[in-house]
């Protein structure tokens, strides 16, 4: 059997994590290619529906990258994203879905290293978990 390659969907804030990813790239840092990045304007704009759709369609993990607290381009988007993540994870736990397949991290435009390390860390963690059960479950 081929080794399991996690598929991770990444929602990256344009003003910080996306630029951090760019920096990691231009600095030729090595990290696993398992994350499919999607540029968004703010971590606060990532509605739960997008995270859930990715998970239910079989993504093995979902990553959201935002600006550090206090640095959101729109002042409070990341604080609101944080609260929504509290609710989101509480709901996942309540219905028995794996909350650790969803990561929210603050990574600035200057933190290319942190971006590469976080993707590496997440890819490993998800690889350890194995494929999402929703990969096979078509009747959702």
């Amino acid at each position: 059997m081929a080794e399991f390659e996690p598929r991770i969907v990444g929602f990256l804030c344009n003003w910080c994590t996306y630029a951090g990813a760019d920096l990691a790239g231009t600095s030729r840092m090595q990290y696993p290619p398992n994350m499919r990045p999607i540029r968004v304007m703010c971590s606060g704009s990532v509605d739960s529906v997008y995270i859930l759709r990715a998970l239910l369609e079989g993504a093995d993990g979902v990553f959201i990258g935002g600006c550090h607290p206090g640095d959101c381009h729109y002042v409070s988007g990341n604080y609101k994203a944080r609260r929504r993540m509290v609710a989101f994870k509480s709901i996942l736990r309540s219905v028995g879905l794996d909350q650790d397949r969803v990561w929210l991290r603050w990574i600035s435009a200057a933190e290319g290293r942190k971006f590469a390390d976080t993707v590496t860390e997440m890819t490993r963690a998800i690889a350890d978990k194995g494929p999402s059960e929703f990969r096979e479950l078509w009747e959702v």
Partner: protein
Amino acid sequence: MAVSGMLKVKDKNPEATLEELLAGWLTQGKLSAILVPVLAKSGAAGAALVSDADRIAGTAPLLPAMAVNAASVVRDIAKLRSEGTKVGVLLRPCEMRAVVELIKLRQVLADNLVLVGIDCPGTYKAAGFRDVAGTDSDFDNRHVREQQNYYDNPNLRTACQVCEHPKPMVYDLEIGFLGLDPDKELWLDGATDKGAALLEGVELAAGEEPGQMQEYLKELAARRKNKAETRIKELDEAAMGPENLTRYFADCLNCHNCMRVCPVCYCRECFFDSENFQRRLDEHVRVSKRKGLTRMPSETLLFHLTRMNHMMTSCVACGICEDSCPAGIALLPLFKKVSGNVQAEFGYLSGRSLDEELPLVGFREDEFTAIGEG
């Protein structure tokens, strides 16, 4: 200035006594109209906006049947700013809680409303209520008279069987009878100026809220809490994990009734009905290719989980969603469990207070600081 006291009940008929009180508010011009539960001649249980005092006699302020959560009606009639009218809304505790959420969500303007909350020992499903009540014209009174029987009545709506909040928490005026002998007296508590104004000229035996009301309430809440916990435990065993959750919603038709009747699911156009959510044929094929096949109608579980994310902080566990589900899915226990968990994260209880900030609107810089830090 707050005013409270006991209202004497005439002829062992609390419902007629209340009707007289309500009619008085209309004849004295204290209110232009009032929203009251009714049982129509056709047998339909619902609510009516009554402006003619003479028509109050045909209403049923103590009706123990629930067709809709009347907060949905309040949302429909009191969303726009209005001048020179004052309307009373007689609401059960879960309806009042939903109205409180809607006020905070800016979907109800309370300026011209007087919130009249009434105790509730539990309700029956509106569908089939005719058969329950039969021809007993005293049914409503009997229901509040025999309130001890409703501790554990298995015929009540499932939401009511596990309801821990049978008394309104926010109100201008409360009409209370839980723990009292409603053939003799009703407790009226005008907590605000608006509420007190309705009691002007009404003969009340002044006094404190009687202790037996609190005692009864404690007992009722404890028993129901117990039952709720049992239900939730059953659910923990039945609905957990991808497979079981999918099975839980296996019969879902994707009709979205549960959302349309939900009092706090207020968006005029749901995201799920929007253009954003329409997929082209080629996109459907692309999605299908991921798993080789996709269930149709698609994304039913996505709908339910998203709905939870959008409104669980305001869910009042009224169970109207479950009553309206044509597939008979046991929505209430699941929503009660999930909303309870989510609200607990923020120390919030939906509908408890107008001053408590909605959890997904506010934030504090120094909270949940571990999130995002890895």
